[in-house]
Structure formats: structure tokens, C-alpha cells
């Protein structure tokens, strides 16, 4: 099976300053890759470049084996890639929950009635069928996040790009979010500051710092209290490889 996402020496500059420098990355079909790094390191820019929302200054993005440079090429692959935005309010632009979830299926050529049916099924699958008729702007942060995810899953994507998925999500909805993502069959790139979330879901991690991507390990060790942690990979680290 071809790798859904391959980046080859991708660079992005903004206002003359480099944001990403020669980043190379291959995402295999069932990969769960975490990208960690400080604020402003270019994590969101990396996801936007994969979606074709950010024009690179050099290097290539290949989606499902096809090198994409023009909007039309990206457009044909976007239905298979779900992108969870950092701010839920950007992504939820329909007045009610069920209409928003139906937006994607409608764009894929379903009729209005079919799209609404798929939306209700997806909401039920996520265990939030009760939210269907609710007004989007009256939802809690955690509920908004789950509805955003439902909007992506309703399009049956093969890849999920998650930008800070646990931001502003309470424990209960967070647990539900994790459970749904555990059940997701496809590949995943998650950008997160939530080490617990990363350790739970990712099978490998890379550190983005100063626009460069480095190998990193996820491991669990005792501090004053015990919690999972992500470190840059050391040359001398016996766990490396």
C-alpha cells in the first residue's frame, strides 16, 4: 500500500522567515505519529502544508502516491484526509450540529437527506447522538471538539491530522475522544502538548523545533510524580532505534 503522506525536503517561509526547513516525513497507512515541539515551531504550518493550504517555498508533498503542487491535485485528495483545526469555532460554521456534520458528505455528492442520515449515524457512533439538534454555539468546548471530529469521520477519511485535539476538552469528553481515535483504522498525525494523550495514542513521535524535524522517543519514567513524557532522541540513548 502506498504511504498516504510523504514530505520530501519541504520548506515553508513566511514574511521572508523560514518556518519549516527541509522537513522530510513518511506516514505509513496505520502510522500514529505525534509531532511535539514548542509554540511557534511550525507544527500547524506542517499540517496546513499537507492539506495544501500552505504553499511551500521548496520541496514536495505527495499524497497517496501522487505529488501535489496545485490546488486541483490537493482538492482530489482532501476527502480522504480529515484535518481537525485548533479552534473548533473555525470548523463549525453551520447553525446546528447535525447540519455541520452533514457538510462533508454533502460535498462528496450525497443528497441533502442522505448527508443528514450519515451525519446522524456518525454522531451515534461517537456516542453524541443527543447533540444532533443542538445549536453549535451553545456547545461546551469538549462537545465542540467531538462534533468537529464527527464532521471529519462522516467523510470516511484514511488519514486524520489533529491540531491540539485535547485543547479545552474536559476529562469526560477527552476520554470519549481518545476512545474514538483508538478505534480509527487509518493513519494519524497528532500535534499536541498533552503528553498523556500522545503516550496513549501515538506509536512514534518526532520533535519539531526551529523548523527542523528530529526523531524522538515516547517513554515513561518517574519524576516527582509519574507521567508519560516525550524527549528528543539522544545518539547515546540505549532505547534508540
Amino acid at each position, binding site marked *: 500500500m502506498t504511504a498516504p503522506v510523504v514530505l520530501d525536503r519541504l520548506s515553508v517561509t513566511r514574511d521572508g522567515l523560514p518556518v519549516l526547513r527541509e522537513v522530510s516525513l513518511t506516514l505509513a497507512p496505520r502510522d500514529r505519529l505525534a509531532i511535539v515541539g514548542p509554540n511557534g515551531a511550525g507544527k500547524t504550518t506542517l499540517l496546513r502544508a499537507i492539506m495544501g493550504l500552505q504553499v511551500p517555498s521548496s520541496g514536495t508533498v505527495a499524497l497517496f502516491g501522487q505529488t501535489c503542487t496545485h490546488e486541483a491535485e490537493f482538492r482530489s485528495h*482532501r476527502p480522504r484526509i480529515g484535518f481537525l483545526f485548533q479552534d473548533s*469555532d*473555525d470548523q463549525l*460554521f453551520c*447553525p446546528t450540529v447535525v447540519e455541520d456534520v452533514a*457538510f462533508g458528505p454533502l*460535498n462528496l455528492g450525497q443528497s441533502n437527506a442522505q448527508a*443528514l442520515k450519515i451525519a446522524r449515524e456518525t454522531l451515534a457512533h461517537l456516542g453524541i447522538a443527543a447533540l444532533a439538534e443542538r445549536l453549535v454555539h451553545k456547545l461546551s468546548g469538549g462537545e465542540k471538539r467531538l462534533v468537529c471530529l464527527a464532521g471529519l469521520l462522516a467523510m470516511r477519511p484514511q488519514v486524520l491530522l489533529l491540531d491540539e485535539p485535547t485543547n479545552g476538552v474536559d476529562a469526560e469528553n477527552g476520554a470519549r475522544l481518545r476512545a474514538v481515535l483508538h478505534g480509527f483504522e487509518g493513519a494519524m498525525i497528532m500535534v499536541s502538548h498533552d503528553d498523556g494523550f500522545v503516550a496513549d495514542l501515538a506509536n512514534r513521535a518526532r520533535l519539531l523545533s526551529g523548523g527542523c524535524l528530529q526523531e524522538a522517543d515516547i517513554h515513561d519514567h518517574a519524576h516527582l510524580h509519574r507521567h508519560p513524557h516525550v524527549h528528543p532522541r539522544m545518539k547515546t540513548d540505549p532505547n534508540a532505534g
Partner: protein
Amino acid sequence: MTQDLRPSLACALILVLAVSQLASLSTALGALASTVLGGLIWQRARLVAHKRRLLHLEVFLLLVLLTLPFTVAGTALFSLGPLVASVEGVARALLVVAKISTAVLLITLFLAQAEPLALARALHAAPLPKPLLRLISLTLRYLSVVSDEFNRLREAAKARSFRPATTLRTWRVMGLMMGTMLLRALSRADRISEAMRARSGAGHMPHLPLPALSRRDHLRIGASLIGALFLTVMDRL
């Protein structure tokens, strides 16, 4: 499920259109009196709830009532220095006031209690251009986001001991806040359009189906048509 506003919207539209075309003062006053009476009998609570909103309008109408008599030529009624008020002017002012008051009362009675979303839904059934409908529904969606953002800015300023006063500095701070709001709104608009593209959006929006109109809805619309026709006939006779 939100309520179906299409019948109310149709009734309000029919009656307001009829009222807007009235030319005789007596019919207009009659229409006003019957609307007030009807409102007091059937929708007293609604009228009381929106009393303030109606009063705001009356202040504006008072201005019309005070200025219009002096700007219409005709038989002199009285004069204030060089300004002469005419009988025709007073009649015109009263006509305008009666018509506007009736129209606003009608809209209040039929639509004031409506949820904005229900109104947007009902408008989808009207023959309006799709981009306009999209603007309305996006505005409804983001109004609360924008107002929350503005409140946070205001609270942040307050938390750092900013107190608005009639000073140049207050105006400058307000200007900066407005500018910040505008910039944020623009970048949010960019992100929303990206989110639409990311989900393969091409301008189509899903919408929940509305139920078929009931017999009662048809009766209400029919009654409004008869009322409108009656007003028009009375006006022309």
C-alpha cells in the same frame, strides 16, 4: 426542533406590504388601532415584553412628527418664526407615523419572539439569492463568537484598570479594540474558508428539512391575505 416560522413570516410580509401602500390617513389610523387592539387581545405578553424596543422607535417617529409639517407645502396651520407648518404636512406626518408604527407592531407580533435560527430557516423557503442566505446563517453562527471576543477584550482592559470616560484616550483604546476585532475577524474568516476547503466545500450547505405547512398555517396566511385585501380596498374607496 426549532419552530417553523414560514407562516408567520408570510403573514407579516403580506400585511406589512399592504400597510406600506396605504395613502389615506383614516385607513392607516384604523389599521394601527386594529393592530394595537388585536395585539392587546391575543399577544399581550409579547407586546409588553417588547415595549422598550417599540418605545425606541417612537422617539425616532417623534422627530418625524416635529419636522415633517414644516417641510410640506400647503395651507398654513401655524408659523414658528420663518418656518410655516402646513395642514398637509401634519396629515403626512401622521400618515407616516401610523404606517411605520403599524408595520413595526406587526413584525413584533409575528416575529419578535422568534429564534434567529428559525428565522434563517424560514428565509431558506423564500425566493432569496443563496449567497444572501449564506451570509445570514454565517452571521447568526458567528455573532456570539464575535461578541464573546469583544467582551473578553473589554474585561481584559478592565482587569488592567481601564475605565472608559469621555477622553481622547478612551476613543483611542476603543479604536484599537475595534481594529483588533476587525483583524481577528478577517483571520478567522480565512480559517473558516480553509476549514470549508479541507472538507471539500464548494458552497453548498446542508439544511434540515422543514415540515409541510398544516391546515392551520394555510388558514393564517389566508386570513392575512383577506386582511391585506380589505385594507387596500378601504384605502382606495
